[in-house]
């Protein structure tokens, strides 16, 4: 399948997850997207899965402590200044589960986009806003680039005989990682400008015609949104 309709299909599924009102429906969408992501090679999929499922789990754990909704109280904790009394109720838990499933579904849709789609062809297929599409494609490549840079930083540290230990040790690498990625993006921007990026008279490689699967995927994307609004 060509990347543009595939991207539209993933966008449709993510939109359906955002529009759906039932936890089971959102969880089912997240499960489908998880299966899609799990079919990617292990070495590529793990940062995406950790990011998606980790952030969803964090949302599930934190939401009951910051929300104040009535319901059966499962746990009551200390009173914190400004926040008030900490407690966990049944309504808070079900709301947290719903939002966590939503976040998981949307981030897994992005992960599937990053893992499976041919971003070159997506950029080539962009009939308009090509510069924006290219920016998105380059941003998508940020995850593997950051992964490589993080490995390089850890190696630089270990090369000096220091092991980065624990969450705090690794968290200290975030700032240099960000600074390094900004430097890398400047080099890329320079190379792109030197190759004429941004000229108004740009053309593009001719695109092959669509087959049967492409319009079907587009229809599926629209259907997912409608079903999300009406029934899920």
């Amino acid at each position, binding site marked *: 399948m060509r990347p543009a309709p595939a991207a539209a299909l993933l966008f449709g599924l993510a939109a359906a997850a955002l529009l759906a009102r039932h936890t089971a429906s959102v969880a089912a969408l997240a499960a489908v997207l998880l299966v899609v992501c799990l079919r990617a090679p292990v070495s590529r999929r793990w940062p995406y899965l950790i990011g998606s499922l980790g952030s969803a789990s964090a949302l599930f754990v934190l939401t009951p402590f910051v929300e104040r909704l009535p319901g059966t109280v499962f746990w009551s904790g200390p009173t914190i200044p400004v926040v008030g009394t900490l407690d966990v109720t049944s309504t808070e838990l079900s709301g947290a589960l719903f939002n966590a499933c939503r976040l998981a579904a949307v981030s897994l849709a992005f992960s599937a986009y990053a893992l499976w789609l041919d971003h070159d062809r997506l950029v080539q297929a962009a009939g308009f806003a090509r510069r924006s599409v290219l920016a998105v494609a380059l941003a998508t490549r940020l995850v593997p680039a950051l992964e490589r840079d993080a490995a390089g930083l850890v190696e630089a540290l270990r090369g000096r005989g220091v092991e980065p230990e624990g969450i705090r040790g690794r968290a200290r690498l975030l700032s*240099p990682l960000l600074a390094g990625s900004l430097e890398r993006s400047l080099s890329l921007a320079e190379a792109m400008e030197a190759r004429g990026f941004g000229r108004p008279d740009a053309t593009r490689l001719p695109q092959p015609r669509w087959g049967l699967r492409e319009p079907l995927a587009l229809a599926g994307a629209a259907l997912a949104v409608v079903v999300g609004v009406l029934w899920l």
Partner: protein
Amino acid sequence: MALARAESLSFAYPGSTVPALRDVSVGLTPGEVTLVLGCSGSGKSTLLRAFAGLVPHFHGGRFSGRVELAGLDTRRHGPAQLAGTVATLFQDPEDQVVFTRVLNEVAFGLENVGTPPQEIEARALAALASVGAEHLSGRLVAELSGGELQRVCLAATLALEPRLLLLDEPTSQLDPEGAKALLELALRLARERGTAVLLSEQRPALPLELCDRVLLLDDGRLTFDGPVGRARAWLEEHHPLFVSAGGDVGVHLHHFGEVTSRLDGVSYAYEDHLLVLDDASLELRRGEIVALVGPNGSGKTTLAKLAAGLLEPQSGRVDRRGRATYLSQDPGRYVLRERADEEVSVGVHGDLAAASRALAAVGLAGHEARHPRDLSSGERERLALAAVLAPEPDLLVLDEPTRGVDPERKHELAVLLRANRRRATLVVTHDEAFARAVADRIVSLALDRELVHA
């Protein structure tokens, strides 16, 4: 008639009080290959960027004088407008790749300059064929070796059929054979097409054989401009290390101390199960400097990491005595702290006095309070070297420490390494002249993983 000309060009980067170029005047003629030499920070890359219009349009800064390319004044025409007339091959291919597939990558520049759509694929394939990389057209860029990727980047520049080709240290990541092949290919194609070439290189021996004319920049000033024959004599007199094989760094020793690292029949394969090392053995003794050489992909870095303890072998055994430190390739990229002395003190539990001593040893005394990212690329490399010297290791492993380093700095590095004989030193390098100058023993790793000791 000059195709490109710089007249009284001076330029300083934003925030810098020191000009990168001072009153440089030079003309470039079609079909002529011009080699620009100079120490790190002498302004070579800046001169190339000025001809591409990237200076001042991309970098900003203070610009005076005039640069003209094919009748276009670069003050009024930005790099995107000049693209096609001029094309640049940068030092690090990974930093210039936009697309994930080879064909798309080569086609990118053609699309930008408005090539008719029906011609783009044919021209991209022809450019790949001209550099012997047509078979790579369907491959993913991430799957290519360093040499293959640099060829693809060269194809992307040649596809534009530029009138001026700028090559900014294009062979720094390649082994000698790969570097020779790439340079010969680029310069042959340029001559066939009547393209003017401006080439910057830190390993001048081969380019001096291939170029027509030499420029030498010293602290931003053009101190020599002449034909290659006269250049050799001038360099021998004023910069002998540019034309000699590393210079005198003292006697080579033959008797060494205890073993600090012993690799016995080690094998290693990465996740893709490709065996990188198979049954390799190596012994490193205190006081000894060993150079590990071999082509790209022969497993030199893997062997070095095994020796330093950054990797564990899947079979065989590694015995180490004392502390090992390892300087990775392109270390200037991996900066951890916000002051130079703090960066160096990471490996010595924050001991700033030890960090200052290490900084002084690599010629960075007085730079303690500077932010590492404000240092020049050459200074950053030395900062990283200080960071692995500060712990006073029993085994020092350096992976390509001369990449992007000028001959005079290489000589200083060789002297620095040979001054301390209390440790074992393993130097992974493509630079054969440096290996011969610095090492007591050269170990060659072949593509068939066989270790040859010399």
